[in-house]
């Protein structure tokens, strides 16, 4: 077992430009079963002489039985691609694209409430399950290995950092999932923790948060109430000066909860094992599991 993706994943890739095609090759090399590609104007031809192109997601699904989608289209077109994939009732849609306007995400989140599809991202590195050699996203395949640690993170590159530290201490991963760094996104920490808690192969979870928002506090509440598995948590941005993006009115919305210190306290109180320095995540896992 694993979460969200496994050997049954039949992937559709939408947006096969420079980054999309490069990453499609990495996914195929890793072992992911990519069954179709959607890219305007290429219907009839094949990606790498192997994967048929279609002009629309619904056609691609009808012809190839894809059950999962990944999106690499540029930000101005990401909303439309996400909606197209949601409307086609894919089980999981992973949007890698960064820079999706927040008003687009507001619409998408409200639309999702009436649908059954799970969205991961946008602005995320996707998901990888080492045991079944299935990667839907851009997490480098050579840094992961099969094992029993679940990894969930808001930050793409910090996810890699955590995985590579796990490797140093001999820990493999059940599934690694990057939920994305945008303030509004498809899958939350809580969603991922719920799945890891239910997953038989996951023994412990590494959670990597960031300053800003209060998603880590929501995770803490879930950990306190529902998690029996150990959670090792790290919050990036302990020393960062206060962000300015949302201005003063924004600060009122979240209050003090955006600070690293507030998140650390919540997580500690909830029983998570908090590691302050991002350099010692692997070490902490070792400590907790020994």
């Amino acid at each position: 077992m694993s979460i969200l993706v496994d050997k049954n994943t039949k992937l559709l890739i939408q947006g096969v430009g420079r980054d999309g095609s490069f990453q499609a090759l990495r996914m195929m090399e890793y072992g992911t079963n990519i069954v179709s590609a959607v890219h305007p104007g290429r219907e009839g031809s094949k990606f790498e002489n192997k994967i048929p192109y279609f002009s629309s997601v619904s056609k691609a699904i009808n012809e190839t039985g894809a059950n999962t989608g990944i999106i690499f289209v540029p930000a101005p077109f990401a909303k439309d691609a996400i909606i197209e994939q949601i409307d086609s009732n894919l089980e999981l849609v992973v949007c890698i694209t960064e820079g999706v306007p927040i008003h687009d995400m507001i619409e998408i989140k409200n639309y999702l409430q009436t649908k059954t599809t799970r969205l991961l991202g946008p602005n995320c590195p996707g998901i990888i399950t080492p045991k079944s050699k299935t990667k839907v996203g851009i997490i480098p395949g050579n840094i992961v290995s099969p094992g029993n640690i679940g990894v969930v993170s808001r930050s793409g590159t910090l996810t890699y950092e955590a995985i590579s530290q796990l490797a140093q201490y001999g820990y493999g991963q059940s599934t690694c999932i990057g939920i994305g760094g945008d303030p509004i996104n498809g899958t939350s920490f809580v969603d991922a923790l719920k799945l890891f808690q239910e997953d038989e192969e996951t023994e412990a979870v590494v959670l990597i948060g960031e300053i800003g928002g209060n998603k880590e506090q929501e995770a803490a509440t879930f950990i306190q109430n529902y998690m029996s598995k150990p959670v090792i948590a790290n919050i990036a941005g302990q020393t960062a000066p206060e962000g300015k993006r949302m201005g003063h009115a924004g600060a009122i919305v979240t209050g003090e909860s955006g600070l690293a210190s507030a998140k650390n306290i919540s997580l500690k109180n909830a029983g998570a094992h908090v590691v302050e320095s991002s350099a010692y995540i692997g070490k902490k896992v070792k400590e907790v599991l020994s």
Partner: protein
Amino acid sequence: MNLHEYQSKELFSHYNIPIPVGFLATTIEQVKNYVDKLNNNAVIKAQIHSGGRGKAGGVKLVSSIDESESFTKSILGKFLITPQTGSKGIKVNKLLVEEATSIDREIYFSIVIDNNDYAPMIICSTEGGMDIEEVSRTMPEKIIKTVCSPILGVSNYKIRKICEELNIPKSLIPNFTEIVNSLYKLFIEKDCILVEINPLVITKEQKVIALDAKINIDDDALFRQKSLKDIEDKSQLEKLEIEANRNDLSYVKLEGGRVGCMVNGAGLAMATMDITKWAGAQPANFLDIGGSATVEKIESAFKIIVSDKDVEVILVNLFAGIARSDVVANGIINAAKETESKIPLVISMRGTNSEEGLKLLNNSNLDITTATDLENAANILKQKLSQGDI
């Protein structure tokens, strides 16, 4: 992207949100002319991207041409320092000259994005004209939060409740309702992440007027807000920030540091900052190259970092996912050669194509120390600091 007060008010005007009569001035002559037009009863406001202008001396009520002249001389073309600007302050190039308003009541009103409910949220308070964070801390019961619906907009019953809580006089409710609806429309149509009026005043003549205006547009949406993108006042940004923006890089200057940092991803950037500080060093800046990166983009990133005179060592922390290490390596090598930079580099490079990248770096003859991971990078930094290398 921030709009100036005068730009925000122009937008308000398009949406029929009442603002005081006012004129934008860039010279003393213009200011004097406008103050005359306004019967020597005007407010002059410095147009800079910062709050707290009033306390910092950037806003002045004048009642004569002479008064306006001496104030303008004291501020136009000068740097205004507020609690939000940093020690250098921001240059005042433009002044807004407005008719003075006789204020009966001051209300705070803003729309922001509520990330928890995935919806716009209206925040308002009877305590207008004050620092709203201060109000939030000391009188939280005075802050009224109203979550809107992306499907329905602002329902009328919510506006009725707001009116009740703000104690809006009955005769002004239709007027106030229209202003709320217009602001919401503006917020949605212009991809705002903040629209703030502090204060929204009720005048002695019983009119509702937006006395101040602050609008912040989602940078990610500027591709479809071309008219707003075009009016961005670049003079309010640091030169290097402009350069970074132009190349789609995220650059933050930090005061008092010596380490120039090039990273990919905000999370790794923050972790790198944490590590650097704990190693005893201070970052001079942060340059996040983001996800996808071309050689040209990396070259430009490197040039921006070495243009910062505070930088004595460059820390590159790359964990490539969608980015490619070989591309980043080539960008750094090209730019280092072109700029003839002698600044030493500490580079941790992992992930996609990292072997190729490290090979390129090691063969480049640049002053590079490669680190195996975050901890190692921090230790190398610490060592260099203790050895007085930097």
